[in-house]
C-alpha cells in the first residue's frame, strides 16, 4: 500500500517537473524562432508618446552607489520638464541622504524624502509607498539605488503605455559586476536565462511577464487604485504583477530597455537575497493562486502560466522529495517505468531556481546575447540549484511555522552594495 502511494506521488511530482521543463523548452524555442524577426525598435527618434514620469529610488545606507544612479538620472535623455525623481532616504545611518541632497540642490527635478527611524518600515514596499505620495506624474518608475540604466530607458519603457490595456512595463536587468567572482558570474547567467529567454518568451506568447521590482514602469492611477505596494509581502514585485493582471491590465516586457544591477557578491549575500525572494514568492503563491484560478480577467493560458510562476519556488523542495521517494522505491520494488522518469530529476537539477530556467534556456540566452564564453560555466548550475534547495526549504519551513504559530514578522535582509561593479559603464 505504501509503495503504491509512493509510486503515485512520484508520478505526480515527475509530471510537474516535466511540465516545467516542457514549458521552458517552448520558451527557448519561441525566442530562438523570433530571434531573426525584425522587431519594432523603440528608439528615441520614433517615440512620440512622452507622458510625465516620476522615478522612485528607495535607498537605505546606499552611500556607495546612490551618487552613481543620481548622476545617471541627470544624464537621461527624457525631457527633464516631464520628469520627477524622488529619492526615498529610508532612515539611512550613512551619508546616503547627504549625497542625495547635494543632487537635489543642483537639479530641481530631484526631490529627497527623509524617513526617520520611527517611519522606517523595514521593507522596500514601505519606502516605495512613502515615495508614491509625492509622485504626481502619469507613470511611476522604480529603480533600486545600485542600478545603472541606459540613457534612453524611460522612452523605451513608457512607449508601451500607448496601449491602454498595458498597466506596467518591465525592462531588462543585466549584471553590472559580472567579472567580479564566480557568484556574480553565475548570477549573471541566471539573469540571462530569466530575462533574455524567460521574460521575452512570456511577452511574445502573451503570458505573464513578471515585474522585477526595479527597472519597471506602472501607471500611477492604477497603482494608487491598487492601494500601492503591499507591505506585508516580501516579494512586492511579484505581488504587484498579479494584482495588475487581476485588475484587468497586462504587463509588457521590453528587452531593449536595459538596466544594470550590482549582483550579490558572495554566498552569504546570495542566501539572504534568495531567501527573501523565495519566502516572498511563496507568500504570493498563497495569496494569489486561488484568485488567479477564479479571475475573469485572465485567459486560460495566463492562468496556467500564472500558477506555474507563482509556485516555482516550491519546485526545489518537491524535487528533493521526489529524489528521496525514488531512492525508497528502488529499495522496495522498483517499477519498470522508474528509470525513464528518473531522468527528469537531474534535468531539473541543472536549472536556475528563480525562474526555473534549465541549462538549455540559460545557454541559449548567452548565445543570443553573443556572450558565449559564459556558456562554459553552465555545468556549475547544479551547485546553485543544490544551494537553492536548502534556501527554499528553509524559507518554506519558516513561512509554514509563522502561519501555524501566527507570527507574521516580516524581516527584510537588505543586500549590501559596494559600488564596485562597472563593466557596462563607459565614460
Amino acid at each position, binding site marked *: 500500500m505504501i509503495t503504491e502511494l509512493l509510486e503515485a506521488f512520484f508520478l505526480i511530482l515527475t509530471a510537474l517537473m516535466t511540465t516545467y521543463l516542457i514549458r521552458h*523548452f517552448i520558451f*527557448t*524555442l519561441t525566442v*530562438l*524562432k523570433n*530571434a*531573426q*524577426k525584425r522587431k519594432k525598435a523603440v528608439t528615441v527618434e520614433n517615440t512620440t508618446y512622452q507622458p510625465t514620469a516620476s522615478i522612485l529610488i528607495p535607498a537605505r545606507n546606499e552611500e556607495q552607489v546612490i551618487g552613481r544612479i543620481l548622476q545617471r538620472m541627470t544624464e537621461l535623455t527624457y525631457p527633464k520638464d516631464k520628469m520627477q525623481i524622488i529619492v526615498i532616504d529610508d532612515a539611512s545611518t550613512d551619508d546616503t541622504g547627504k549625497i542625495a541632497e547635494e543632487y537635489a540642490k543642483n537639479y530641481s527635478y530631484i526631490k529627497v524624502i527623509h524617513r526617520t527611524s520611527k517611519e522606517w518600515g523595514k521593507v522596500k514596499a514601505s519606502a516605495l509607498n512613502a515615495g508614491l505620495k509625492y509622485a504626481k506624474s502619469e507613470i511611476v518608475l522604480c529603480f533600486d539605488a545600485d542600478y545603472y540604466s541606459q540613457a534612453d530607458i524611460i522612452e523605451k519603457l513608457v512607449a508601451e503605455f500607448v496601449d491602454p490595456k498595458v498597466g506596467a512595463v518591465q525592462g531588462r536587468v543585466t549584471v553590472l559586476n559580472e567579472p567580479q567572482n564566480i557568484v556574480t558570474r553565475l548570477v549573471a547567467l541566471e539573469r540571462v536565462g530569466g530575462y533574455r529567454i524567460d521574460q521575452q518568451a512570456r511577452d511574445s506568447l502573451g503570458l505573464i511577464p513578471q515585474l522585477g521590482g526595479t527597472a519597471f514602469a506602472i501607471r500611477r492611477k492604477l497603482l494608487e487604485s491598487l492601494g500601492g505596494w503591499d507591505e506585508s509581502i516580501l516579494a512586492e514585485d511579484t505581488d504587484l504583477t498579479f494584482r495588475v493582471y487581476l485588475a484587468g491590465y497586462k504587463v509588457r516586457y521590453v528587452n531593449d530597455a536595459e538596466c544594470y544591477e550590482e549582483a550579490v557578491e558572495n554566498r552569504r549575500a546570495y542566501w539572504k537575497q534568495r531567501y527573501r525572494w523565495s519566502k516572498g514568492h511563496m507568500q504570493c503563491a498563497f495569496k494569489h493562486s486561488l484568485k488567479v484560478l477564479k479571475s475573469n480577467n485572465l485567459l486560460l493560458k495566463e492562468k496556467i502560466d500564472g500558477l506555474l510562476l507563482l509556485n516555482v519556488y516550491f519546485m526545489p523542495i518537491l524535487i528533493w522529495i521526489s*529524489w528521496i521517494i*525514488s*531512492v525508497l522505491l*528502488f*529499495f522496495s520494488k*522498483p517499477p519498470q517505468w522508474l*528509470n*525513464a522518469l*528518473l*531522468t527528469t*530529476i*537531474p*534535468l531539473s*537539477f*541543472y536549472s536556475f531556481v528563480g525562474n526555473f530556467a534549465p*541549462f*538549455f534556456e540559460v*545557454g*541559449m540566452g*548567452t*548565445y*543570443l546575447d*553573443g556572450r*558565449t*564564453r559564459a*556558456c*562554459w560555466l*553552465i*555545468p556549475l*548550475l547544479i551547485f546553485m540549484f543544490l544551494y537553492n534547495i536548502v534556501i527554499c526549504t528553509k524559507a518554506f519551513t519558516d513561512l509554514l511555522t509563522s502561519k501555524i504559530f501566527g507570527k507574521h514578522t516580516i524581516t527584510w535582509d537588505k543586500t549590501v552594495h559596494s559600488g564596485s561593479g562597472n563593466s557596462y559603464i563607459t565614460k
Partner: protein
Amino acid sequence: MEEDGWRIKHLIFGFFTGAIASYMLLSSPYISNESAPMLMIFNFLFVSLIFPLNGTLKTKLSMLLIGNVTGLVWNNLFSLFAYTVAYYFGEVFNTLYMILSPIANLVWIVSFWSISLTALANSKNTTGV
C-alpha cells in the same frame, strides 16, 4: 527551404541522424536501461536547439556524432566501474548506481552541449539564428 533563419533542412538531417544514433546506442550492450533515456534526451535537445543556429550542417552533424560517441564511451566506462564496485559492495551500490547514473550522464551532456554552443557561436556561417 530556409525561412526566417529557422533551418528546416538542418533540422530534418539532424533528427534523422539523431534517430539513427539513438537506435544504434540503444542496441549497444554497453548502454544500460538507466542511461538510454538520457542519451535520447541529449539527441533531442542537441538537434532541436543547436541545429537551427549558425554553422554548417557538416559541423553540426560531426558534433552530434562526437556527442554520441562520447556518450557511448562514458557509459561503457561508467558501467565497467559500476560492475567492479558492485562486486565488492553488493546490491546497495547497484541501487546507488541506478539513481546516480542519470546525474553522471548529465554532467557530460551539459558540458558537451555548452562547448558546442560556443563553437557554433564563433562560426563564420551566419545564415542561421
